[in-house]
């Protein structure tokens, strides 16, 4: 049921839990020393991190099958949240059930390691199948919007997230460094840590130094200062962690740090735009302080596939993974 974690992964996890304890202590002592200020949101956020990080740790320490089921469950929660938020037509219920079924199939391709099918199943087969099923129902009023929103949601919540679980399949890339001998677990931990650290750094720098809104029409809380702070923190951490968890060279680690920071930000504001269009603040209530599951995985929807294909191109060239 469980796997043995390589020492660098264990140390990184220990560091993350250490930071979590430290951050919790800071938030609670701040709240205690300033009773007139409202710290409810920060406290809620900390409490949610105490749920998110142990669950993420499970995906690393469980064996591949169990962790695959866990990722499929994340996709299910995210897709259900998405489909409950957007307007759907009652006539399309029999199409939506196929979208849910696509989760099972997509993760099954990961399970059996059918790389080609994993890559094209949703962008090609589901893209062709769902409109056909919708046409069979015969409701043309609102057809374009219905199929457009459904396919986008499937890409966002299932296709991109399934890249996280495919990372776990990657074999060690070589013997260039300690990190190169670890393989998929190191890559997944590296990606998830950097993406979340980038989110937090952007939030903290934005709160402390933020003056100039970067994209006020979509997300008024995002500032240039926050973005730059996130960029520096993430790139720095990417360079420090790379030799321990990944096969990346210094240059590639720096590029990945910049890529994760920039595209994590884009993923975040893309989901913000979706919420703004629907006139809601949070996508759900699953994670107090954060909102719903979409609010938490928003940056991963961009960073996961881009990180995966960057790694595949430079470190597993010409291979059928």
């Amino acid at each position, binding site marked *: 049921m469980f796997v043995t974690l390589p020492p660098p992964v264990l140390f990184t996890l220990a560091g993350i839990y250490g930071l979590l304890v430290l951050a919790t202590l800071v938030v609670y002592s701040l709240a205690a020393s300033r009773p007139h200020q409202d710290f409810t949101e920060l406290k809620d956020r900390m409490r949610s991190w105490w749920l998110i990080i142990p669950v993420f740790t499970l995906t690393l320490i469980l064996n591949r099958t169990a962790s695959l089921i866990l990722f499929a469950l994340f996709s*299910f*929660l995210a897709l*259900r*949240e998405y*489909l*409950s938020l957007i307007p*759907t037509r*009652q006539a399309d*219920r*029999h199409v*939506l*059930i196929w979208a*849910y079924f696509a989760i099972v199939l997509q993760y099954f391709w990961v399970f059996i390691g059918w790389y080609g099918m994993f890559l094209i199943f949703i962008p090609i087969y589901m893209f062709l199948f769902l409109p056909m099923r919708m046409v069979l129902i015969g409701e043309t009023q609102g057809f374009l919007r219905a199929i457009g929103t459904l396919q986008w949601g499937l890409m966002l919540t299932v296709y991109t997230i399934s890249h996280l679980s495919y990372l776990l399949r990657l074999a060690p890339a070589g013997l260039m460094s300690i990190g190169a001998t670890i393989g998929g677990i190191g890559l997944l931990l590296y990606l998830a840590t950097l993406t979340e650290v980038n989110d937090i750094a952007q939030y903290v720098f934005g709160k402390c130094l933020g003056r100039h809104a970067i994209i006020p029409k979509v997300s008024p809380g995002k500032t240039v200062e926050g973005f730059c702070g996130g960029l520096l923190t993430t790139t720095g951490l990417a360079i420090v962690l790379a030799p321990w968890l990944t096969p990346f060279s210094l240059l590639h680690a720096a590029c990945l740090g910049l890529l994760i920071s920039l595209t994590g930000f884009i993923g975040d504001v893309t989901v913000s735009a979706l919420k703004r269009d629907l006139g809601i603040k949070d996508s*759900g*209530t*699953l994670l107090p302080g954060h909102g719903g599951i979409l609010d938490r995985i928003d940056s991963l929807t961009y960073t996961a596939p881009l990180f995966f294909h960057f790694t595949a191109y430079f470190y597993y060239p010409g291979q059928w993974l």
Partner: protein
Amino acid sequence: MNQTSYPLVKTLFFLCIVRPLVYWILGLQIQNRDRLPRDGPAILVANHNSHLDTVVIMSLFPIAKLSQVRPLADAQYFLKQNRCLAWMARHLFEIIPVTRTPSETRQQLARQRAFLKTCQVALDQQNILILYPEGSRGEPEKSSEFKSGIAHLAKQHPDVPIIPIYLQGLGKALPKGDPLLVPFLCHVYIGEPLYWTGPKQAFLDRLSDRIYALAQ
């Protein structure tokens, strides 16, 4: 107290089928759960869009209290059509059958008296009734006119708390006329109890307003 005929089957059904369905597939979110009555007599009044409505409301109660919760349901639909459905309605959900075919006035009056009598017996036994004043299931998130049965019942039992409940999303997950269950997030909002104030129409309007105000 009401006598459950198959207590073990009922417990297993709610524990192994209903709970996973309601909490994992529908991801039910409950607001103000503490406003639910701990014991009867009480009347729960909700909007009605789906067969899941009763399942969800019953799943809010602890297993030990389930035998007290009695949904009112159409006898024609649940007991006369399908033997399997009838068995489930009788023994798992323990419905109180209601006849509601509109017919001659005299017959209708007799039916109404019988309905009030059954409810009275159930409330005297400390039961918690579930009642849908809209009658049969309507379109999701759209209100329809309340039937007057609840007003007569409330008038007869002015001390029994009436708890308004608003259910959201269930009509999307399992609407009328389609047996396919599609996962959608569902919410249940529980309101403050209210009591009979009369007159009939004003009371019905107030009840309806209270339920649909919970939606906001």
